[in-house]
């Protein structure tokens, strides 16, 4: 087994659905064997692939007004593509959105926003079921409205499966998916939209 295969298998085995499946099966065996009952777990997965479908439920966790407004802008950008993004809370949420003053040291140094996959669908093709998105107010609190919009567009773009764009791949300099947040780039460009649509 290669390292890559091992890693994939390990990820698959770590995933919450797999653990729940194993837990259910093994808990039944334990009960049959007279062992003590067990309790539920909380965990996350690590893969960072495209979303599992075009339905995109976003949930905001006590966001500041600026973050909330920018997220609405990002939601609108997603809706320019095949994505069907809307706000909704509950178990079907696809994107969990947080903000905080995460600081300017350690892994947050120089980082205005961060996105990762919280739960992937290992049993299908590794697509992401639930993303986690964070805005770092330690930097973003100084942003004007268009920089905020650029940040939200950028992070929500990752939840639609987009990667980063470099300057040579964004010659008209109008994609929010560039590495650096810039007020002049608050939207997806046509290439970004096409890339999202091509995923499905």
């Amino acid at each position, binding site marked *: 087994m290669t*390292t890559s295969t091992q*890693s994939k298998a390990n*990820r698959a085995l*770590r995933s919450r659905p797999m*653990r*729940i499946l*194993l*837990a259910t*099966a*093994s*808990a039944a*065996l*334990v009960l049959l*064997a*007279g*062992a003590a009952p067990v*309790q*539920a*777990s909380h*965990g996350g*997965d*690590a*893969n*960072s692939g495209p979303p599992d479908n075009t339905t995109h439920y976003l949930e905001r966790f*006590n966001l*500041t007004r600026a973050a909330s407004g920018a997220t609405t802008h990002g939601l609108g950008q997603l809706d320019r593509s095949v994505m069907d993004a809307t706000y909704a809370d509950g178990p079907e949420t696809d994107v969990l959105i*947080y*903000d*905080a*003053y*995460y600081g300017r*040291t*350690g*892994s947050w*140094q*120089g*980082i*205005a*926003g*961060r*996105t*990762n996959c919280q739960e992937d669908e290992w049993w299908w093709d590794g697509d992401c079921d639930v993303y*986690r998105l*964070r805005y770092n*107010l*330690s*930097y973003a*609190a*100084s942003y004007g409205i268009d920089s905020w919009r650029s*940040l939200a567009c*950028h*992070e929500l773009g990752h939840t639609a499966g987009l*990667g*980063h764009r*470099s*300057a*040579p791949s964004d010659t008209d300099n109008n994609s929010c998916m560039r*590495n*650096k*947040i810039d007020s002049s780039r608050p939207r997806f460009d046509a290439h970004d939209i096409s890339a999202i649509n091509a995923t499905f």
Partner: protein
Amino acid sequence: MTEHDDAPPDPVPSRRGPSRRLVALVAAGAVALAAAGVTSWALWPDAVDDPYPDVPEGVYHAADVRAFDDLAVMTASSALVVKGTAVEIRPGAEVVYDDGSEAAVTDREVVVDVDKVVYDRYGIGAPETVVVVEGYWENGIGYTREGMPWTEVGQSGYFYLTAPPPDVLATETYAYIHEAGRVLIGSGSAVSIPGHWQEEGPWTAVDHVNGGAPAFETAIQSAADAAAAGEAVPELISVCVPSDPAVEDSAPLCWEE
């Protein structure tokens, strides 16, 4: 009475092995133990797995506050630029995010044995080692920035490090000023830099095709000389805290550093 009952006792100990009942009991016990182990692993993976695995399984995407087109500016903006070798990887500070997620994140620290201080913005001096935060662990999973493999013990190169100014916030750990701020030099003078460094950023001016590591080292020293001479100005960024620490949505107090 059966024919079997009439048979005389066996004069020698049986060689048939353990009884079916014993085999069944042992099997049941093994199944129970295995099931208990799987249950424990499935429900409490952190208690079973290494909480700080050596290999990252997770990737996070990050939006940068900075971007550098000029190596001298990246140098001047750094608190410290060192040449060194990674000698230890260890878990650092753990933080529980107060954002509604209650996520507990542990910094992954790389201890770098310093061979040479290339640039020292704040007059920190010449440390024997520096500690660099590179990635993090959460819930037994290691996370690395997209396109930035974790540094391993034994790898050498140049590290462009930053931290808040010592007079503002003393910290014993550094972070890369940018993803292009880690230049690992491997065998055969192979150079490894994260991100789209061949397409954009401070390294595009270096002849990476023909020059190899010597070309990078020449450029690094030249940029350090320019920064030390004041020919390159540090790029400042705005940082903020809430005016009311208890109210996240209170007006921010921001400044440049």
